[in-house]
């Protein structure tokens, strides 16, 4: 149990380290940008019509406070941290005066749902197929699957997404290609709404699954074909242990360990993929929010979403990391 605590403490230290680096980076990028958010916002506001200079000056002052661009660099830095810790990124400009955090809160469940589901499906299916392909290296069926996956693997998110969009949006329009759920339905625990969410989520999720499966398949297959020559596997086969047990308990269980770490490491990329998928399918999650914020020139929204997603990814990585000892007794028991 002691080993477990030390392990968790270490991982937590890493989490803090990553979050501090990410937040600092976001702050520095925003601070040293040649664009002054206050002036940018002002020009955006004033472009809607003539505003008298005095009220512009008042607005400028309050915007400075809002964006925390007053005081020395250090003061601004700590001010920024204060806001990050409070989860207060100010009001969104494009949806004034809704707080950025409220908008993020609305988008968050969509992204979490989509990503969790798609990532888990890709991980489970990719690893299962990869393990089978690695263990039964001479199976014809697995060779065909392998060839298929190899062709699929290098195809990037946007190509898979666009292809699915074209197939199911234009050639054979059976699935919705835009949005998170049917608009005229009241969100809630009704069957109509849930089935609509599932329908709308199918193509985005399928894209992420197709993109994700290949990597897991290939790495698992090579892990397994290495592990089958490990002493403990050879020994179990020599011991006449039934093939099913050898495969599941001796081969797959050991090959799974690096794949859990791999899952944690891949989350950053998975999130990047989600941005493009949400954009392609107009899915109402964090990624689309970020892109929309950039299009709308919404400074506080973009800074807020970026900072938030850096932290969220780090926390997700941490959560996966601390499940690792549950499957590897060498870590748990020190």
């Amino acid at each position, binding site marked *: 149990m002691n080993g477990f605590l030390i392990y968790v403490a270490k991982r937590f230290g*890493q989490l803090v*380290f*990553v979050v501090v*680096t*990410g937040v600092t*980076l*976001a702050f520095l*990028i*925003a601070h040293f*940008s*040649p*664009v002054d958010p206050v002036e940018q916002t002002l020009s955006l506001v004033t472009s809607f019509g003539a505003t008298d200079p005095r009220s512009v000056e008042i607005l400028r002052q309050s915007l400075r406070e809002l964006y925390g661009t007053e005081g020395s660099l250090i003061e601004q830095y700590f001010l920024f941290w204060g806001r990050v810790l409070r989860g207060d990124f100010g009001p969104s400009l494009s949806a004034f005066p809704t707080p950025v955090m409220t908008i993020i809160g609305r988008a968050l469940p969509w992204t979490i749902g989509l990503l969790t589901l798609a990532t888990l499906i890709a991980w489970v299916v990719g690893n299962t197929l990869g393990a089978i392909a690695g263990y039964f*290296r*001479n199976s014809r069926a697995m060779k065909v699957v392998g060839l298929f996956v*190899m*062709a699929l*693997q*290098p*195809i*990037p*998110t*946007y*190509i898979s997404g*666009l*292809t699915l969009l*074209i197939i199911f*949006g*234009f050639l054979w329009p059976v699935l919705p290609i835009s949005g998170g759920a049917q608009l005229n339905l009241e969100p809630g625990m009704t069957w109509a709404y849930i089935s609509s969410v599932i329908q709308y989520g199918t193509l985005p999720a399928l894209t992420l699954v197709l993109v994700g499966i290949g990597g897991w398949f290939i790495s698992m297959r*090579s892990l397994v*074909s*290495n592990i089958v*020559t490990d002493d403990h596997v050879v020994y179990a086969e020599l011991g006449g242990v039934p093939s099913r047990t050898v495969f599941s308990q001796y081969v797959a269980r050991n090959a799974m360990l690096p794949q859990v770490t791999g899952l944690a*490491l891949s*989350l*950053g*990329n998975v*999130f*990047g993929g989600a*941005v*493009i998928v949400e*954009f392609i399918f107009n899915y109402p999650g964090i990624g689309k929010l*970020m*892109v929309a*914020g*950039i299009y709308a020139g919404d*400074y506080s929204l*973009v*800074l807020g*979403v*970026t900072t938030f*997603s*850096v932290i969220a*990814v*780090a926390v997700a*990585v941490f959560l996966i990391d601390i499940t690792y000892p549950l499957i590897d007794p060498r870590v748990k028991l020190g």
Partner: protein
Amino acid sequence: MFKVLRDLLRYNREFLFGSLLIAIILAVVVASYFAPYDEMMTYAVIPDMPPGSEYWLGTNSRGQDMFWQLAASMRNTLIFGIVVALISRVIAIAVGLISGYVGGKTDQAIMAFNDTLGALPNIPILLLLVFVLRDQMTWPVLALTAALLGWTHDSRLIRSVALSLRTREFTRHAAFSGMRTTQILLREHLPYVMPIVFFTTMNNLIWAIGLEVTLSILGFSDINRPTIGGMIYWANAHSAMVAGIWWWIAVPMVAVVMLFIGLFLLAMSVNEYIDPRSRLARMGA
């Protein structure tokens, strides 16, 4: 080196096929230097012509010949990828070799930094940068940023090899005979890590090009400069699919798939060549 290449071409079907795809793409890139009109020009040819004998890959709604557009885009996209890969290679090799050679606490500190940087999600950070820089975000700036984000994984791989070289006889020998550290690293250690460097370069190219295409599709790069992602961006902006001009979107998609599969096959076969264990697996039975 030449013999290795010949062996790979002769005995490794993946390598052969990958090389073929890349050769086609390089031929297209070379063709871009013989374009009949400036690549930035619009309405140079009759718009919306389907692929045929006159316009091999058709023309788009902006009056551009898709073939010449593709050639210029492929060139620009590849150059971007290569620049990113080169810069990040230099960083990865330097960090990996030094960290592995020094070892101990310094190595641990470098690797902690390395992993932290690697754990940050790239896309949000890049998007924030794109947002604040706007028009100043030219492709060289983007390339530099991508290179600064994309070396951490490879430096770790290189470091693990360098770590094993550290205790070898020849390293002690070289250090004893008064060779300077930089000399030891460059002359003695670098050759050992070159195979991994080659393998990671392929993967890094794929990653960098993917990044560029992603940002271009979103419209976050210089959209007037032809790139693969830019082609898709314009096709989307003109609702090419709805308008029935399918080749506008199909051409860049097929091209990028060819490029990625080509690079991927090269990376896989080279990796197999380096790693004796997967050689065994390949022999099967």
